[in-house]
């Protein structure tokens, strides 16, 4: 059962996202909560709707505070979550790191496209190493200092040496008194996924086409990352031959020459076989091309590779055909003809930027 507060919260979320009640949109403030991560302040996005009231303008108001300080001293930033009615939004905050929540983004995407949650394949014994705090030791970083244990040690020492005075019970811990939390590495089961991006970089793929691929990959990446704890990405570019490259090269390479898609599928298959055993990994190859494959039976070879090697191994194989200035190729039709009841294979035509939306839905709408 959905609790009542969840209903109220989802109603609030929908207002923030502009689905309902547009008259309230202008009162939305994109506030943030200031958290602390180590030495840095981090910002946690916190949208709020500020219903208008008759209230005082804040800026010129003073207030009352408590503490040391000379007249004229500037006040430091207020403590996070400090409840001071007078100085609510008082001094400027020092923001050092801003984290835009990718989780929130993925959630938005998921809701927007009504994507199903992915069911990881099988139950595999994939493990990951995690730190677990288990004990106490006498050395360690200050950030792990155990206040109570340190204090108790100090008290013990003072009692033993007779310096403890019950009437003036001040206990000052010294270095040997300090105790720190210690940890052990444990292995926990986890789901891992790898995304193999394959892009056709033959002469017919222009900048506009690459931009489409990039935008679409970003969103796919975001979504899959929200579904798996750990994601690895591999990048393959191909024209007549295929090479594995890093992310930067992937988006910036511009080759020329013919197109032999089978070369890329072969390489993809090799990478999977070498690094990603099917029993341990959820595998997602995404292939983008303008579909203008070289004649001479290469398409047949591709179909064979897919049917015999790739499809049995992957969760999902996505083929996106981008329309280029030279028109759209034949490859997508060939695939659709060969795989009439596509299961692990999804194809999608991407005419222009506006079609990205639909295409993502086609790719990820299966929940695999």
């Amino acid at each position, binding site marked *: 059962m959905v*609790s*009542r*507060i*969840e*209903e*109220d*919260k*989802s*109603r*609030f979320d929908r*207002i923030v996202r502009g689905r*309902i*009640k547009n008259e*309230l949109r202008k*009162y939305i403030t994109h506030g943030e*909560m*200031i*958290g602390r991560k180590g030495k840095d302040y981090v910002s*946690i996005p*916190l949208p*709020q*709707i500020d*219903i*208008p*009231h*008759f*209230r*005082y*303008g*804040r*800026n*010129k*108001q*003073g*207030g*009352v*505070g*408590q*503490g*040391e*300080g000379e*007249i*004229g*001293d*500037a*006040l*430091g930033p*207020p*403590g996070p979550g*400090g*409840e*001071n*009615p*007078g*100085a609510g939004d*008082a*001094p*400027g905050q020092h923001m050092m790191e801003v984290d835009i929540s990718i989780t929130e983004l993925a959630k938005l995407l998921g809701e927007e496209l009504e994507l199903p949650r992915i069911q990881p394949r099988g139950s595999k014994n994939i493990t990951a190493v995690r730190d677990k705090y288990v004990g106490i030791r006498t050395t360690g970083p200050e950030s792990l200092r155990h*206040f*109570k244990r340190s204090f108790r040690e100090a008290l013990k020492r003072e009692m033993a040496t007779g310096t403890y005075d019950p009437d003036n019970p001040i206990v000052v811990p010294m270095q040997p008194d300090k105790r720190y939390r210690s940890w052990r590495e444990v292995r926990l089961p986890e789901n891992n996924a790898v995304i193999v991006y394959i892009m056709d970089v033959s002469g017919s793929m222009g900048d506009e086409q690459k931009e489409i691929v990039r935008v679409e990959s970003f969103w796919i990446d975001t979504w899959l990352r929200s579904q798996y704890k750990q994601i690895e990405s591999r990048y393959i570019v191909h024209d007549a031959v295929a090479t594995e490259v890093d992310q930067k090269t992937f988006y910036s390479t511009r080759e020329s020459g013919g197109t032999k898609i089978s070369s890329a599928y072969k390489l993809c298959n090799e990478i999977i076989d070498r690094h990603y055993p099917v029993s341990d990994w959820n595998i997602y190859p995404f292939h983008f091309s303008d579909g203008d494959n070289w004649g001479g039976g290469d398409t047949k070879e591709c179909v064979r590779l897919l049917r015999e090697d790739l499809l049995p191994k992957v969760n999902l194989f996505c083929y996106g055909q981008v329309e280029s200035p030279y028109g759209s190729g034949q490859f997508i039709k060939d695939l659709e003809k060969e795989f009439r009841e596509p299961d692990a294979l999804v194809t999608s035509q991407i005419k222009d930027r506006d079609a990205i939306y639909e295409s993502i839905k086609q790719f990820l709408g299966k929940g695999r």
Partner: protein
Amino acid sequence: MNAGSRTSPELQRLAMSIAELARSHGLDFFDTIFEVVDYKQMNEIAAYGGFPSRYPHWSFGMGFDQLEKGYSYGLQKIYEMVINNNPSYAYLLECNAMVDQKLVMAHVYAHVDFFKNNLCFAPTNRKMMDVMANHGTRVRKYVEKHGEDAAESFLDTCHSLDNLIDFHALSQVRRRPVAKTSVSDEEAGPEHEVPRLRAKQYMENFINPEVFLEEQRERRRKKAVEQLKVPESPERDVLLFLLEHAPLPRWQQDLLSIVRDEAYYFAPQAQTKIMNEGWATYWHTKMMTETLLEASEVVDYADHHSGTVHTPPGGFNPYKLGLALFRDIEERWNKGRFGPDWDDCEDWAAKRRWDKKTGVGREKIFEVRRLYNDVTFVDTFMTEDFCREHKLFHYAYNKQTDQYHIDSRDFQKVKQQLLFQLTNFGQPIISVVNGNHRNRGELYLVHQHEGADLKLDQAEDSLRSLYRLWQRPVHLETVVFERHKVLTFDGKEHTRREIKAADA
């Protein structure tokens, strides 16, 4: 002593022994039901202002979102929540350590004592749990009947005006006697006699026929009634005025009255924040350190207590101020440091040694907790010595540096500022002056300016909300940059008109 389903026998025993201890100290509270909840339930309950059965509205979802994020990023955690009700409900966090539960229970009993005995809370409804559930049912009924959007939008409008109640009224007024609708001849004006045409005696009945005169009198009376002011004197409870006079359908009237009732229920808690928290903190420290603490718990207790009264540099913490004031009062009344003798004494050394062994400190703080609210509490008991000892200061905004700076440690200035913040609970004082402005049924409100301007964009949007209820043009007289202005919304556009101060 009742206990919720998830309260362990150990906690129940603890609750009982702490209640007994609290009674032995003289605390007097309602039966208190402790419920143990997990953090998510706690956040949910807190988002609903303590009432799990409250009416549905997105704003509670927003509060919940905030609490959830605050909790999951480790910024804040609610240890306890207590409801002013008879019996009182208190929620404890499941994951609290035993020492925390002790502290929290001691704290809770003092809060409930405060709810039961402080005068500000006297008019609050002690069956609020039921009332809130009732409100919830009614709102759900309207949602079903008139649609979610219609009901919710109307609630938004009401929420926008929910600070327009009379915060310092001693009791919430239900309905006022109906305003006057007739006027006697004497009240109709000094020249209430209808002028007659001059006529000779025998012609009188023909030239000034009695029927005509009566007609004229009637007309004058009517006019006088029209000129009668509604309300008769400025009305601080704007929501009540709207309830009685705005042309609303029944269901909207009911929603408005729900919002108003809840605003009145929560008002005393805002009015006594410093005192209430100070009182609860005073008692939990006393009971914990004198009786309840086990030796092994001292360090954790000290750690958590110092968190409660921690003041961020330059900040302000009502728990700490309240606690310090109560202790100061107890000491002064124990040592007889009050009355004319003490006030007139100029000898600093004598004042330091002053101890008349009057020993009435405890009695005094119990009296204070019954009779005062934050404003009178600070006004009466914050002394210059206290201010100096606790290093209070006044800060102001500096345009050039875009920062706040400490600008004074002068006692009067600090106290003035604190009282200003507390008066009307930091809300501007706005009253209805005329419900028939310009004799055209327009609504005229006046903001009593006390040095700080209103936020203009929000004020104009709030006028829009008022218009939605009043359905005739609405005006607000206020001061903007030291000039008297009237902000108007006539249903289509906003206008600002400057007036002379005396025009009001």
